[in-house]
């Protein structure tokens, strides 16, 4: 959706689009700064819908400008928050389809044309997400007892390290290793089963669900292992059931289940 070209000059302007709404109340955006200081947020009508837009200096939003911004955590956070504030304000007042951070067009006419081309998609998304919120669910494998690493203590138990161990020691060693390996496989299977159970339970009350890529294990060895990273589109009147469901699943599986939300349904506006 973003179009940027090399032909921009310093004083050229561009149009930043935050979200597409159905009949928004302009009053909710009056106090929000958006992503530029010198201009105000305003509605842009197209095909019966309304986009929330802001005129910005094209020079502030070139590829290079974004590259610089990406490497500056604070600056990036400032933009992400400004974007999110507008999207949240919109979503709180009317059905809203959030657009990705840094959705830009060269001027109003091109924005209107591009948005018009996608009207059907926006309508479908608005219809699907109206009265719904997004909830994130992350599941971590139950804490396992500290495993037997299988490494033999090199000093205490094997003082005569260079001499050949007694017969049968090798057999016992491999048996122990086999035990460790089997235990690891069992834990892995258990974790997968927990993930499926939790996902199936949430799918039952959700209008839609998506499984996202698992986060890598936390560094430093002892991190928790994530087994499910999913997000669900849940009707507002069913949100109250989430708490009870989470508690039940926690008790049933022993896994750590983290639920976050309600969020603006970012993850459920892309599909048609």
């Amino acid at each position, binding site marked *: 959706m973003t179009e940027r070209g090399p032909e921009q000059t310093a004083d050229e302007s561009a149009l930043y689009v935050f979200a597409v709404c159905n009949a928004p109340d302009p009053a909710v955006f009056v106090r929000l700064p958006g992503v530029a200081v010198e201009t105000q947020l305003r509605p842009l009508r197209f095909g019966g819908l309304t986009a929330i837009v802001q005129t910005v200096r094209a020079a502030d939003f070139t590829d290079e400008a974004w590259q610089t911004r*990406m*490497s500056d955590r604070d600056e990036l956070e400032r933009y992400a928050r400004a974007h999110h504030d507008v999207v949240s304000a919109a979503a709180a007042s009317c059905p809203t389809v959030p657009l990705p951070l840094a959705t830009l067009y060269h001027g109003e006419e091109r924005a209107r044309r591009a948005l018009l081309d996608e009207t059907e998609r926006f309508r479908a998304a608005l219809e699907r997400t109206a009265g719904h919120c997004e909830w994130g669910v992350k599941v971590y494998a139950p804490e*396992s007892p500290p*495993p037997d*690493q*299988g*490494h*033999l203590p*090199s000093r205490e138990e*094997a003082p005569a*390290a260079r001499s*050949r*161990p007694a*017969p*049968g*020691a*090798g*057999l*016992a*060693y*491999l048996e122990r*290793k*086999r035990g*460790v*390996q089997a235990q*690891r496989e069992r834990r892995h299977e258990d974790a997968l089963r927990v993930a499926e159970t939790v996902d199936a339970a949430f799918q039952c009350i959700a209008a839609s669900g998506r499984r996202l*890529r698992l986060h*890598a*294990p936390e*560094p*430093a*060895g002892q991190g928790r*292992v994530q087994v499910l990273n999913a997000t669900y589109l849940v009707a507002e009147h069913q949100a109250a059931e989430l708490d009870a469901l989470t508690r039940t699943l926690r008790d049933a599986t022993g896994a750590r289940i983290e639920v976050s939300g309600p969020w603006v349904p970012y993850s459920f506006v892309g599909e048609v």
Partner: protein
Amino acid sequence: MTNQRLDIDSDQLGQDLVALVLTVVELLRQLMERQAIRRIDQGDLTDGQVDEIGTTLMLLDQRMAELCEQHGVRPEDLNLDLGPLGTLLPRD
């Protein structure tokens, strides 16, 4: 993403190289161990052979632990995070 420059400190470089070499050796050792367990499960080895293999792997394991200790490398340093692929060695 980061503004950090590469700091070429030869001691640190040597230490990292040791850790990397030990990582590769440990990976091979664990692969051999798994292969040995698979062979045993298939049942085509005599008890004597199994004991022989087990003893060799055990001595390698001990030697590995000694080397790590000598070079101040912790067992968890011998693992690489491969991002979406997980880690090089199984994490228990």
